[in-house]
């Protein structure tokens, strides 16, 4: 087995946690490879050197500080359940805001009386729709405005009621 392949098993071999198979493979390789043997020795020495570093003692006030911190912490409020799930709280708030916004865009609720009045008005508009369309066509009919002036009174007279045209046909 190559040195590279042995490398991952080497640490487990040196700390005594390698399986039986791993140990066998590493030992076989170390017998043949002087470089890996040297490296294994250096790892052992490295661990001894690292063990020289002493551990530190926590300061005597450590426990008291922690107790004080716990005592000073604000007690959870009734919405405290939201604090561990801020994303959920935000999603909920957005959902409520969206509901309010969409609700505001809907038509106001209508009472039956208003509905009946609206329907009647709409019916009248539909009934007069033909007149309205004719009026629209005639008022925008350019050909009528181009007629000679003499023709216009005649046209006007035709449109006027009979009582308003005592001298009718004088221009004809």
């Amino acid at each position: 087995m190559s040195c590279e392949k042995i490398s991952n098993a080497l640490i487990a071999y040196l700390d005594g946690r390698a399986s039986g198979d791993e140990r066998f493979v590493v030992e076989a390789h170390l017998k043949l490879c002087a470089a890996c043997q040297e490296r294994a020795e250096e790892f052992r020495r490295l661990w001894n050197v690292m063990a020289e570093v002493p551990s530190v003692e926590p300061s005597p006030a450590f426990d008291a500080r922690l107790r004080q911190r716990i005592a000073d912490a604000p007690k959870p409020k009734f919405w405290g359940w939201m604090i561990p799930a801020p994303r959920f709280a935000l999603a909920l708030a957005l959902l409520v805001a969206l509901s309010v916004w969409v609700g505001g865009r809907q038509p106001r609720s209508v009472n039956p009386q208003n509905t009946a009045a609206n329907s009647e008005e709409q019916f009248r508009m539909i009934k007069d729709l033909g007149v309205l369309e004719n009026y629209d066509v005639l008022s925008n009919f350019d050909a009528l405005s181009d007629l000679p002036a003499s023709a216009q009174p005649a046209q006007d007279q035709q449109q006027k009621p009979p009582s308003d045209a005592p001298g009718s046909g004088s221009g004809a």
Partner: protein
Amino acid sequence: MARSDVQLMLDVKAGDELSFELLLHKYRKPLVNFLCRMVRDQAVAEDLAQEVFFRVYRARKEYSPSAKFTTWLFRIATNLALNAIRDGRYRQMQISIDAPAAEDEPAFQLPSREARADDKLIERERNQMIRGAILTLPEKQRVAVVLHKYHDMDYAEIGKILGCSESALKSLLFRAYETLRVQLALLVARPAAQTAGEGKRHEL
């Protein structure tokens, strides 16, 4: 019969404050040491350890024993330490053995036991070198080495704390120790006398 850590934590969940005191007493020192090796400064390490225990206490009601208590505890500590390092809130003083010294600064001298009279000073400098070398490791490698070497954790547990497989962890550890072996070569190298002796034996 002594209660397990998980049982103690379940008792804390049930409102037993004394069980929390027992867990605090048991893990205060390992946790401060772990964090000290992660961020170097003891005061900072203690601040972070306070935060870890505070979070454990605050989360007691939601605690469910899905993993070993130490896995949970050290995962919180690891996340806090890594966040603190990344935030740059706690600037660590790192020693780079390879970095060139400033002109007015004396060149870094490797302390040798024979050359220095003051053993305490030598010891302190050696410790600083070792701590400094560990601090120069990439974050994940540093966590792996500290938990493996100083807390004697098994591969499965370190893997859970770091969120990686055992095989990936072994590779990570190998690379980390290889880096340390090179960085601390002068401390790790075989004593000259021993090497010379071996050479003479070969000659004979």
